[in-house]
C-alpha cells in the first residue's frame, strides 16, 4: 500500500475530488496548509507599508491506495489540478507499513 500526498491550489480541490471519485477512489483526507515553493509568496500593502507574505495557502490531500492504483491516482490528480502556471503543487508517494480499519479491525487491502 502507498500513501499519496498531494499539495494543490485550493480552488482546484473540488475538481480533483470529483475526478478521483470517478476514478474509483473511496476516500481521502484534506487539510488547509500554508507553504512556499518556487512560486514564493506575495506582497500586500496596508496604509502604504508593504508586507511580504511568504506562506501561500494550499490544500493537502492524503490518499491511501493499493500499489496497483498509484499511477491512476497520480495521473488523475495531475490532470485535474494542473493549470500550467507556477504554484500548481506537488505529489509524492510513500510506503505504508500497516493500515487498520478502526470499526472492524480489518487490516491491509480490506481496510483501504
Amino acid at each position, binding site marked *: 500500500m502507498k500513501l499519496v500526498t498531494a499539495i494543490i491550489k485550493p480552488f482546484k480541490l473540488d475538481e480533483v475530488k470529483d475526478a478521483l471519485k470517478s476514478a474509483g477512489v473511496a476516500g481521502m483526507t484534506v487539510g488547509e496548509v500554508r507553504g512556499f515553493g518556487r512560486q514564493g509568496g506575495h506582497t*500586500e*500593502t*496596508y*496604509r*502604504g*507599508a*508593504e*508586507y*511580504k*507574505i511568504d506562506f501561500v495557502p494550499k490544500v493537502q490531500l492524503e490518499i491511501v491506495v493499493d500499489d496497483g492504483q498509484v499511477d491512476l491516482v497520480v495521473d488523475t490528480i495531475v490532470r485535474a489540478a494542473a493549470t500550467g502556471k507556477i504554484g500548481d503543487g506537488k505529489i509524492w508517494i510513500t510506503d505504508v507499513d500497516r493500515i487498520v480499519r478502526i470499526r472492524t479491525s480489518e487490516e491491509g487491502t480490506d481496510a483501504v
Partner: protein
Amino acid sequence: MDAGNNAWVLTSAALILFMTPGLAFFYAGMVRSKNVLGMLMQNIFAMGLISVLWAFIGFSLAFGGDGNFVGNLDYAFMNDVATTIDFPGFELAVPGMTFFAFQMMFAIITPALITGATADRLKFSGYALFIALWSLIVYSPVAHWVWDTGGWIFDSGALDFAGGAAIHINAGVAALAVVMVVGPRRGHGSEPMPPHNLPLTVLGTGILWFGWFGFNAGSALLADGIASQALVNTHLAAASAMLGWLVVEKIKTGHATTLGACSGAVAGLVAITPCAGFVGGLSPIWIGLIAGVVCYLALGLKTALKLDDSLDVIAVHLVGGLIGTILLGFFADDTVNALGDGLFYGGGGELLKDQVLAALGVMVFSGVVTYILATIVQKTIGLRVDEDGELTGLDQSQHAESAYQP
C-alpha cells in the same frame, strides 16, 4: 424645555456611545489575532471605568465653576446635576442631565482613541490606571478649556464645534507621548504584522461613521438648522476624504485598498469635527479632501519620528484634528453660524490665529502631562506587558481567553 431638542441630544448621546465599540472593531481588525480581545477589551472597558469616574468627579472637573484652566467639585458625585441647566456658563436648551450624558460619551471615547497607538503591548492593570488618571488630569481640564465659557480657549474666541482640539488633537498627542514611554512592539520593523481581519475594521468604520452624526450634529445641543448643517458636513467630509486618500494611495502604491477607504473616511470625520457647525456649502468637501490626502502623507511621520504608532493614531487623529482646527480659521462662515468668520469669508486672520494658539495649547499640555502620567504608571505598577505576555499575546496573557478557537 423643548421636547424635540431633548429627544435629539439624548439620541445623539446613544449614537456617540456606540462609537466606542465601533472604534474597538476598527482597531481590532488591524491587530494580530492573538491581541484581538486585548484591543476590544481596552475600548469596552473605557465604557465602564470612565462612566463611573465621570459621575464621581470627571464631569465636575470639566464643567464646574468658571475658572480658566479647570472646573471645580461643585457637581462631584452627581451633586446638583439634575437641577442645573447652565453647566457650560450659558443656559442650555436641554436638561442638565442630558448634557451630562452627552458629554460623558465624549469622555469615554477620547482615552479609547489612544489604544490604537499602543496596540499589542499594554498591561491591562497599567492601562486601567493610566486612562483613569488621564481622563481626570488631561481630558476634563481640556474639555473645560474648550467648552466652558470660563475656559481660556473658549474665552480666546477659538472654536471647536465637537472636539477637534479637545478630543482628536488631545488624544493624538497623548498617543505620541505614551508610545515614547512604552516603546515599540517586540519585532516591530523585523517581522511583518499585517492586519488579521479587515472585515472587522470595515464594520467598525460603518459604526463610527453612523455614530459620528450624533458626535457632530448632537454638538449643536439642540435640534436646529445648525444640527442639520453639521450632519451634512460630517457626511460630505467623510466621503471626500475617502476619495482623497484612495487617489493618493492608488498613485503611490498602485492599489486602492479597503483599509485605505476606511482610514480616509475616518480622517475626514476627524477633520470635520471642529468645523461641523461653522462651515457650509462645499467647504466640508474641501476640508475632507485635504484631510484624506494630508493624513495619508502623514503616515510617514511615525517612521521619521522612529515611533511605533501601531495603528496610526498620529496620522489620523493628531494630524486630522490639526487640519480641521486650523482650516476652520479659513472656512468658518458667519452666515452658517454667527460665532465665527474665517479668512475666506471676510473675517481676517483673527480666528486663524486663535485656532493655532488653541491647537498649540492643547498639544503642549496634553503632550507633557501625558508623558509624565505614563512614566509614573510605567515606573510604579508597569504600563507595558512583560516579554512573555507580549509574545503569547494579550488575549491569553491579560484575559485568559482566545478570540478564535482552533
